[in-house]
């Protein structure tokens, strides 16, 4: 078998996309999570990027957690810089504490003889030099001690090359490590007594808390925290670092409410430990936790952490937060989360249009009514959330009026209240201190609100649209399409701009304009995320395939007219800039669609518009995949090369030859032969034929049944069912004068009928049912042509059925036909 023909393939970027599609099917790829979650409300507008891991996403906690952690580290470094009166910078301290590329490990220093460090490479470190020269041995002793703790503490996990990271774990350390940690604890007790100030005492206290925590000595950990951290008056982020471990100790001491209280305080006040605090908080005994709060603001922080654990409706928690602390900045984070949830619940199903339920479940599962009921509930919830936000705007206690008005506007937009949306957008823009992020979101929302509010899409609308699009383009970081874009980790390219283009494509499609809808899709950097149920696999990998599946020939003519138009409006130029280089592909598609519709006249006309070298420049891999003679078909070869492959036909040549054969079969003698050749041509452009690429841009050995069921092409019965070929073989049989040749035509018709029955069975098969892949294959006895051969052409029967080489002899009878 000519195996290379059995892979879906085309050239260039489309080839990559299709080959990729094939590979992805094999490897289990299917878009999900952030790739299909739809939303246009950017939570950055809340101005709380330090809470990014807690945005509403499908990759919850994995979103920007490292950046938030680093920001927390920076707080400690800033404290050191202040401590050093800027004689040593934060960067220098960072290099000393967190760098690991020194010739000398500071942890190896002798705490009782620090002056010896002058003789070591450590002296080249600015901080060490500063402290030795000053001299300030007490501070240097702490830094050495901290490095010694680090060396022993990070024994539990190893998640960086060559280093070991501390990670929350309840694993018991080895006996050797226990001894080392206990020795360090004793050293800390000695050193803290010598420490000259609260700054250093707090840090020794912190180290002791950490040491006992990793010794799993929870009682001692809690005691040391009280003694050395809580009682220390120094203002420092380390208080919260220690508090995080204290919370863990309380949890293990079965003081769950107290643990939750401290986790909530850590969450509210400390960037570096925020993720850990979220993970530690259980919220099971909320009443007792709230009773520990010292004021309403702390109670609000506890409710905030509870709300952040709620993946469903969190409005009741938010109401508590607002009642206790209407000024809470974190309220904005919670509002943004709820808006993003509503977008996911309402917009994702509406815009992505996945097939919602397996066919075989449909009897027991009424998706339409479920979806309708859910939408009604979601809109009710949206109304409640909007009322909450409007109330906050009215009471004017929360300082961020810009964000609140923006939120109200967006909720109105989602609820199709465009006038109200615009009113709140105006208020958001006018609000003092409206951030750039808020302003950007205002403009985006106004654009969408406007686009959806208009009854008709007209040039005025498009001009205005373009201004906003251009503005948004400037705001977006340049994204180049990553060849490995199918990997789920690369989700960042699905940005606001792409989402907007996708939403506009949807808007235009709804308005009945598929031509422009496809052009909006052409603007998306990463089209794989553009999902519609129309795609064979539920999604498109290139905008070309949107047209391939959805556009009519009239749509394509309109598209080509727009591409070729001189004096385009600015908007038209913007829309077509990506499609202009693809002009010839669309002419190719136009002709191909005419061939699918069995109109070779119009196909030929279309192909004449292409330059001569189009077919040889391998645009779709034609050089490899249209390398066979489509007018030769034998009993079994199909994709296997044959002796007749000395000539090849590009699409233009094929269409022209089909027209010629049609004419010959109607006017010349040997009509049976010309009908037979036409039938061969039709057979070759089926799924089974050697020139499938005349009518398709991809082929796969896998899933023929799914494709048969899902594809929207109008020639499916011809492509999978070989119907047109069967008809022409029968025409040939009908006019043939030679019984042998007539028998050959029936033999070929039998082959087509066999394929047609397989296709008809596949159409009736129910995916997911037990017999889906065990569909009955039509038997030899069922084939009416084979039975006819047996009955009426007995003298040829055996050779035609059992001798594949006999075709040469039968073809030789063409002159008598």
């Amino acid at each position, binding site marked *: 078998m000519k195996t290379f023909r059995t892979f879906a393939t085309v050239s260039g970027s489309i080839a990559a996309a299709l080959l990729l599609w094939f590979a992805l099917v094999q490897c289990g790829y*299917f878009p999900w999570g952030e790739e299909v979650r739809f939303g246009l409300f950017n939570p950055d507008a809340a101005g709380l990027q330090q809470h990014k891991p807690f945005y509403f996403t499908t990759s919850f906690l994995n979103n920007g957690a490292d950046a938030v952690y680093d920001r927390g580290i920076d707080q400690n470094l800033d404290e050191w810089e202040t401590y050093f009166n800027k004689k040593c910078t934060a960067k220098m301290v960072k290099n000393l504490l967190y760098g690991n590329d020194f010739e000398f490990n500071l942890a190896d220093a002798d705490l009782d003889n620090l002056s010896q460090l002058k003789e070591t490479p450590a002296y080249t470190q600015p901080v060490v030099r500063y402290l030795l020269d000053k001299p300030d041995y007490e501070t240097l002793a702490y830094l050495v001690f901290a490095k010694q703790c680090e060396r022993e503490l990070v024994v539990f996990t*190893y*998640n*960086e090359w060559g280093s070991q990271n501390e990670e929350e774990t309840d694993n018991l350390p080895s006996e050797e490590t226990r001894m080392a940690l206990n020795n360090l604890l004793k050293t800390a007790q000695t050193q803290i007594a010598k420490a000259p100030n609260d700054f250093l005492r707090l840090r020794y206290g912190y180290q002791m808390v950490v040491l006992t925590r990793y010794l799993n000595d929870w009682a001692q950990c809690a005691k040391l925290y009280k003694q050395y951290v809580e009682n220390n008056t120094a203002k420092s982020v380390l208080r919260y670092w220690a508090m995080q471990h204290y919370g863990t100790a309380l949890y293990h001491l079965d003081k769950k409410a107290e643990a939750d209280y401290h986790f909530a305080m850590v969450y509210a006040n400390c960037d570096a430990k925020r993720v850990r605090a979220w993970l530690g908080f259980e919220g099971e005994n909320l009443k007792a936790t709230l009773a520990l709060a010292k004021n309403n603001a702390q109670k609000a922080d506890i409710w905030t952490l509870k709300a952040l654990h709620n*993946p469903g409706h969190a409005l009741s928690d938010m109401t508590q937060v607002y009642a206790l602390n209407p000024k809470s900045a974190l309220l904005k984070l919670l509002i943004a989360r709820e808006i993003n949830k509503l977008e996911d619940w309402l917009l994702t199903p509406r815009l992505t249009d996945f097939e919602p339920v397996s066919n075989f479940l449909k009897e027991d599962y009424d998706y339409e009514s479920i979806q309708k009921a859910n939408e009604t509930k979601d809109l009710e919830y949206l109304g409640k959330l909007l009322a909450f936000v409007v109330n906050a705007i009215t009471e004017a206690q929360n300082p961020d009026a810009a964000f609140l008005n923006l939120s109200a506007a967006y909720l109105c937009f989602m609820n199709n209240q465009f006038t109200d949306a615009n009113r709140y957008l105006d208020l958001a823009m006018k609000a003092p201190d409206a951030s750039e992020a808020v302003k950007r979101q205002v403009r985006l929302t106004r654009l969408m609100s406007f686009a959806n509010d208009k009854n008709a899409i007209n040039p005025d609308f498009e001009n205005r649209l373009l201004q906003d699009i251009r503005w948004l383009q400037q705001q977006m970081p340049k994204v180049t399409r990553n060849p490995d874009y199918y990997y789920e980790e690369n989700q960042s390219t699905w940005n606001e701009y792409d989402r907007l283009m996708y939403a506009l494509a949807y808007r235009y499609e709804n308005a009945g304009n598929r031509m422009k809808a496809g052009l909006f899709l052409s603007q998306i950097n990463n089209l794989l995320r553009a999902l519609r149920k129309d795609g064979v696999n539920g999604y498109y990998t290139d905008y070309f395939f949107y047209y391939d599946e959805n556009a009519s020939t009239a749509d394509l003519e309109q598209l080509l007219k727009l591409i070729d138009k001189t004096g385009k409006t600015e908007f038209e130029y913007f829309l077509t800039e990506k499609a202009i280089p693809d002009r010839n592909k669309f002419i190719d598609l136009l002709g191909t669609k005419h061939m699918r519709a069995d109109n070779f006249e119009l196909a030929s006309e279309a192909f004449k518009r292409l330059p001569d070298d189009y077919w040889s420049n391998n645009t779709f891999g034609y050089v490899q995949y249209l390398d066979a003679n489509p007018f030769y078909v034998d009993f079994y070869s199909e994709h296997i090369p044959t002796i007749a492959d000395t000539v090849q036909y590009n699409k233009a040549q094929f269409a022209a030859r089909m027209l010629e054969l049609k004419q010959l079969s109607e006017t010349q003698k040997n009509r049976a032969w010309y009908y037979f050749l036409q039938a061969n041509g039709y057979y070759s452009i089926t799924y089974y034929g050697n020139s499938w690429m005349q009518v398709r841009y991809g082929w796969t050995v896998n899933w023929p049944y799914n494709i048969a069921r899902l594809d929207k092409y109008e020639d499916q019965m011809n492509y999978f069912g070989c119907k047109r070929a069967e008809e022409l073989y029968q025409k040939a049989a009908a006019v043939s004068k030679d019984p042998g040749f007539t028998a050959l035509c029936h033999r070929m018709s039998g082959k087509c009928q066999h394929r047609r029955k397989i296709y008809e069975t596949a159409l009736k098969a129910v995916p997911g049912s037990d017999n889906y892949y065990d569909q009955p294959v039509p038997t030899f006895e069922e084939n009416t042509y084979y039975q006819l051969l047996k009955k009426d052409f007995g003298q040829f029967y055996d050779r035609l059925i059992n001798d594949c080489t006999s075709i040469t002899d039968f073809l030789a009878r063409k002159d008598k036909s």
Partner: protein
Amino acid sequence: MPALYMRSAFRLRLLCLPLLALLVNGGCQTHNQIHTEPAFYWWTQNFDIQTEQLEQLQNLGVKTIYIKFFDIKNIAPKGAQPAASIAFSSPLPAGIEIIPCIYISNDVFLNPDTLTPDSLAQRTAAHLLKLLQNAGNPAINELQTDCDWSNATRNAYFGFIKSLKKQLPQIQRFSATIRLHQVKYFEKTGIPPADRGLLMYYNMTNVKQLQTRNSILDNREGARYLPRQMPAYPLPLDMALPMFEWSVLFRNGQFKGIFNSLNRHEIENTGFLKPLKNNFFTCTIDTVFENMYLRNGDLLRLETIGLSDLQIAADICNRAVNTNTFRVAFFHLNSTLVKPYTHENIQDICHRFR
């Protein structure tokens, strides 16, 4: 009708079981000089094997455990980094051979900013040795790498294996996991420069698609990849069969996530998951369950594996057997899921390879 054929073969073999039991005792010797040995995978981050599991291993005649030591992932912006490195809370069991496994995410080899195969191998070897030290430096005869390589990553991954061999000359054998499509299309996908392959006969269909019946194991799908009279894979193959279960959540046709080890009993006990046809359930309320927000109409597909599935799986995998001595590894050692299987069951599965 392959399915029918397999069912009747299964019946026949059941009848033969007492005879086989007489012929075989203790080990996993089978006919025609084929020797198979059962093994298990340990894939969780903390190695804390329990007494019950040790007893199970002993009862099932298991002498080898494949243990995942760490992942290598492409973590932006650092590039290739180790992740989920194993911690040993309990000592490695005596008398059982350990085969460390390293899972490498395919995009590690796609990222142009990542390390070269040589330097990645160097770091991988160092990291592995450090973790082995934590495990008490057990004797290691074989190391396994697990990567679902693609055309774009093949050269880098294969280069990595070659370098790793050079970095760890003390290890006698290197094995690589092989997916079904890599067996079927080995001329296109390439053959890793390892000493052995391990055919992963599970996770064979797309878990994220609603139309999938059972993504863990679908023997009809498996049979399409392993036809009768298939060409022999160029590396001697060990076999891996699934012994795990999960439930897959869908909303509006979209994959939303997986509940690990959520079984039928637990699903039915929720009171809000109503059974539909086959292995599907639908949620009847909006609720938070296991930290996931379930909505009215969400669909849950329960994917489980039974003994008969494994027996048929063994029959199909038998088509890929290309060596006389190999392991039949079960993924993975979960005492609850392993409990229903007797020594005879495991023996039966091994005996099907002949």
